[in-house]
C-alpha cells in the first residue's frame, strides 16, 4: 500500500491510497488520516482509484475518519470505481455514510455541496 496526502487549504485534504489495504497496512493509513484531522483538515477525500484490495479493517478506518471529520464540522468522501471494492461498501452498507462516488471530481463536488448546505443551515440558525 502507498499513501499520498495533500492539504488543499480551507480544511480540505485529499489522501490517495494505492495497493492493498488490509490489517497489515491499515495502521499506516490510520496514522496518515489521523494526522490530517489533527492538523485541521475536516473535509477529506479518500481517493481509492488505485486501491486494489479493501476489507473490514480498511472500512473501519474510513468510517472512523468520517466521524472525526463530521465532529469537526466537515465530512469525508470516497472516490472509488472498482467493482470488487464497491461490493464491499455495498454489503457493509457504508456507501452513503462514506459518500462513495466514482471519481475525485464527484467526491469534491459532494463535499462542496455538503459544505454549502451546512453553511446555509448555520446561516439560518444565525438569523
Amino acid at each position, binding site marked *: 500500500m502507498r499513501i499520498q496526502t495533500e492539504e488543499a487549504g480551507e480544511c480540505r485534504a485529499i489522501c490517495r491510497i494505492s495497493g492493498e489495504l*488490509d490489517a497489515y497496512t491499515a495502521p499506516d493509513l490510520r496514522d496518515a488520516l489521523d494526522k490530517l484531522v489533527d492538523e485541521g483538515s475536516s473535509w477529506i477525500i479518500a481517493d481509492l482509484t488505485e486501491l486494489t484490495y479493501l476489507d473490514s479493517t480498511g472500512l473501519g478506518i474510513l468510517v472512523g475518519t468520517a466521524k472525526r471529520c463530521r465532529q469537526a464540522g466537515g465530512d469525508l468522501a470516497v472516490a472509488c470505481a472498482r467493482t*470488487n471494492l464497491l461490493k464491499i461498501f455495498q*454489503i457493509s452498507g457504508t456507501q452513503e455514510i462514506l459518500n462513495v462516488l466514482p471519481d475525485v471530481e464527484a467526491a469534491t463536488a459532494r463535499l462542496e455541496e455538503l459544505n454549502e448546505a451546512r453553511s446555509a443551515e448555520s446561516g439560518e440558525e444565525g438569523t
Partner: protein
Amino acid sequence: MADRNADTVEMILPGRPEFLLLARLATSGVGLRAELTVDDIEDLKVAVSEACTNVINHAFGDDIKPADRKIQVRMTPGKGEMTVEIEDEGAGFDPKELQRSKRDGLDGKGGLGFGLMKELTDSFRVESAPGSGTRVIMVKRATR
C-alpha cells in the same frame, strides 16, 4: 469437516498481519485451479482475509507465545467451486453471541467480518466454542 482430497492445499501461517497477503495469494493460486472467475477470486480473497484477520485479532490472548499463534488454512479446488477452511486452536467463542454483535457492525463492536464472509461466499459455516478454537468453512462457486 469439509471434503479434503488429493487436491487440497494446506498451509500453516504465522498468526500475524504480515501474512494476510500470502493467504490471499494462495487463494488466487488455488482459485485459478477451481476455475473461479477473477471477480469470484476477489470476493473469496476478502472472505479468507477476514477469517484470518479474526484469528489474528481474537484467537490468541497475550499469554500465547508467537510460535503458537498459527492459522491453519486448507483450500480445496473442485469442479467450478472452491472450499476453504480456516482454523485456529485459540480462545474460541460462542457463535450464538454473533447475532447480537452483528448489529454493532462498524462501531468497533464486531460483526462486519462474518457479514462479509457470508455475503461474499455461497456457503459459510463457523464452528467454535470457548476454549476449543474456531473453524470457518466457506465454499465459493464459480459464476458463469
